[in-house]
């Protein structure tokens, strides 16, 4: 018989009932940065196609990418790239069944966040100062 109305049994709890932890946060951010990088590849393809098309189109891309808004997007892309990369390296560690205990999990999660921010700032520092 088809059920009508709400289930009369306890339903499994969803995300909002748990206290947010750094490991949860980094898991979510890994997926978000992955999706961002998916669409971010368009930035690369557009630049390459513009360069292949000639001087005028490349100058246009340079102007847009070099603007404040363009730089902000590229800064975000840089961070997403490094964050997803370090998150991936964390997954390589877990693939060997290592680093799954509570303390190491938390350390790896923080290392991913701090490392990605550090690499992003370092890359932009080299670009702006070099």
């Amino acid at each position, binding site marked *: 018989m088809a059920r009508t109305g709400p289930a009369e049994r306890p339903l499994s709890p969803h995300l909002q009932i748990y206290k947010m932890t750094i490991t949860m946060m980094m898991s979510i951010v890994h997926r978000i940065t992955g999706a961002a990088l998916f669409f971010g*590849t368009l930035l690369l393809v557009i630049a390459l196609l513009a360069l292949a098309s000639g001087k005028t189109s490349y100058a246009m891309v340079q102007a847009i990418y070099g603007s404040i808004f363009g730089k902000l997007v590229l800064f975000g892309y840089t961070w997403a790239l490094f964050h997803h990369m370090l998150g991936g390296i964390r997954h390589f560690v877990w693939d060997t069944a290592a680093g799954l205990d509570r303390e190491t999990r938390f350390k790896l999660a923080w290392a991913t966040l701090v490392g990605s921010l550090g690499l992003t700032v370092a890359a932009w520092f080299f670009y702006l100062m070099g």
Partner: protein
Amino acid sequence: MNNNSHSIRTPMSRVRGLGAARSGTDHFWKSRVTAVANVILTVPFVVIVMMLAKADYAGAMKIVGHPLAAILLMAFITSAAIHMRLGMQVIIEDYVHSEGTKIVLLMFNTFFAVAIALASAYAILRIGFAG
């Protein structure tokens, strides 16, 4: 892995270990192989992009047109395109429950990844052969 006599899985199906989707660990393994390639290729990619950011049009043509840079860029984009297709497939399967929409989105996902890889390869080769 149900081994009791009530399982309707045949011994052969258990031995093959391909599961209901008939693909076994294929998706997982491809995502890891491309992930390793991506980590390695991210280093030259970031270096090339930083060089490009400092160059004018002629300089950029020279950088991308260099055989080593061209091959490394194409390798990175190919690996990234395969990797992102696998990742986006999981996102779609997790959140889109309507069968029709899901199939259409999975198709567009593949089209997008192939388009990204082909367009980049075309542009890079054209730049390389222009010099």
